[in-house]
């Protein structure tokens, strides 16, 4: 027991670990709170799609010789809105719209990076996350993001609930469905761009999907789903990051593994209760 405490104390004495835990928890909270609106509206894979867009933005930044974050956030926001518009205007289903935008982005990114002489960024870190790369600016951005998400979910709760259940009815009763959707899309985009630092492009969608789907196994009401998924997500981040430090494992993959274990336990619990 004391060995565990020693390891935790040691881990937390490092600045990069402190940043990783704080950013991880804030991203975990944001993605879990947004998750329910995305998963239930069949936008589960939007995390994956936007991560691919973010890959293209890194290439664009390289091409233009500017900072990736500055370029990533606005472009990913535009892409997320484009996905929703494709769905609404062109009647292309959410999953197909995500597929279109994401594969186009990857192709663009590959072409641009080949023109500008290949990638020289830490590819492994980019694909699977690297908590060493988390900077002070990421930390502040995560604080702002999480505050924005919490504010949105609390104050627009009923609007978002109504839209998630039935968009047409919501617009009949005067809820500004489009503006609310854009708000969710924007917050999701920032969550993805920042979350890539922690778990990487390949794993970011799991931060949105796992906690929500795990919570859906046991919850009955909408509110409790949000609360349970937030708890699961924050728990997974803390255990995942500390565990990865203790056993010298990649932190992104560890977080996802903990999420997966929680999901399986929830499924098991549900079966047990039903039978």
């Amino acid at each position, binding site marked *: 027991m004391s060995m565990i405490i020693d390891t935790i104390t040691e881990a937390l004495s490092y600045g990069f670990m402190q940043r990783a835990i704080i950013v991880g928890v804030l991203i975990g909270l944001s993605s879990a709170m947004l998750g*329910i609106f995305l998963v*239930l509206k069949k936008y589960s894979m939007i995390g994956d799609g936007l991560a691919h867009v973010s890959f293209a933005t890194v290439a664009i930044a390289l091409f233009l010789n500017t900072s990736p974050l500055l370029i990533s956030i606005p472009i990913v926001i535009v892409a997320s809105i484009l996905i929703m518009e494709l769905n609404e205007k062109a009647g292309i289903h959410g999953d197909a719209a995500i597929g279109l935008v994401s594969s186009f982005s990857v192709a663009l990114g590959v072409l641009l990076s080949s023109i500008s002489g290949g990638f020289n960024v830490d590819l492994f870190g980019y694909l699977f996350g690297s908590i060493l790369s988390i900077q002070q600016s990421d930390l502040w951005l995560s604080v702002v993001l999480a505050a924005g998400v919490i504010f949105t979910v*609390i*104050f*627009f*709760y*009923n*609007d978002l*609930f*109504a839209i998630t*259940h*039935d968009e*047409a*009815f*919501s*617009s*009949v*009763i*005067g*809820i500004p469905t489009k503006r609310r959707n854009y708000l969710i899309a924007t917050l999701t985009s920032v969550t993805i761009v920042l979350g890539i630092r922690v778990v990487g492009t390949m794993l970011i969608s799991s931060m949105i999907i796992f906690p929500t789907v795990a*919570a*859906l196994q046991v*919850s*009955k*009401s*909408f509110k*409790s*789903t949000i609360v349970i998924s937030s708890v699961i997500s924050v728990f997974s981040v803390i255990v995942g990051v500390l565990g990865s430090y203790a056993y010298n494992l990649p932190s992104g993959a560890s977080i996802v593994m903990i999420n997966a274990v929680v999901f399986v336990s929830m499924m098991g619990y549900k079966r047990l209760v039903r039978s």
Partner: protein
Amino acid sequence: MTSKLIEAKNITVRYGNNVVLTDISFAIEKGDYIGLVGANGSGKSTLVKALLGLVPLEKGKIIYNDLNKFEHGIGYLPQVAVTGNTLFPAEVREIVGIGLLGQKKFPKRLTKEDHFKVDTILTRLGIIGLKHKKIGDLSGGQQQRVLLARAMVSHPKLLILDEPTSALDPRVRSDFFNLIEEINKVDQTSIVLVSHDLSSIKRYTRKMMLLDRELVYFGPSDEFDLNFGMAKGMHNHEHDY
């Protein structure tokens, strides 16, 4: 003087190249009970959506008199029950509460009084026992009644019901028609009821509207000729196949 709640003036709606409604004009008055009939694909749901502002108009306009659409003068029951997703985590009371949000200001919290309204409508529709049930666990007919409660809970001046009885069993169906009649007479709520069951709704409604992409008939129910409906409206559109 009769007051017009809502007026459609020369509206035309098209989806791509498919002109679904052509030059339709009519007015819905206070206390009206209108049965809207027509074959599959004749544009009934589209007309309803046009009245609700859910589809763009190619031509014409909708005028909302004495009816603030946004503060919720209109209750709406969509044709297709939404929740195919059995995992959707919401209890019946939460879903019905949505119907009250149109009258709320930011941050749109439901009060004790609102919860009481929800209970009242659930009781009136005979589904108070389902209050704490998860929506996805209900049968199609039960879900339809929950959505009907959502449409009615705000006591709208106009209630638009798109095939509300399609998933109801016969006993519940006649209860339902009696209830709608009561709402129309006692509460003075105007009703538009879309149905395929031409002969049975004609018994309840005051007016009938027959649609065949254009307005074929709109007038008193007792002057509405069933044969006329059969001949004109109830054939299928070849170009739909």
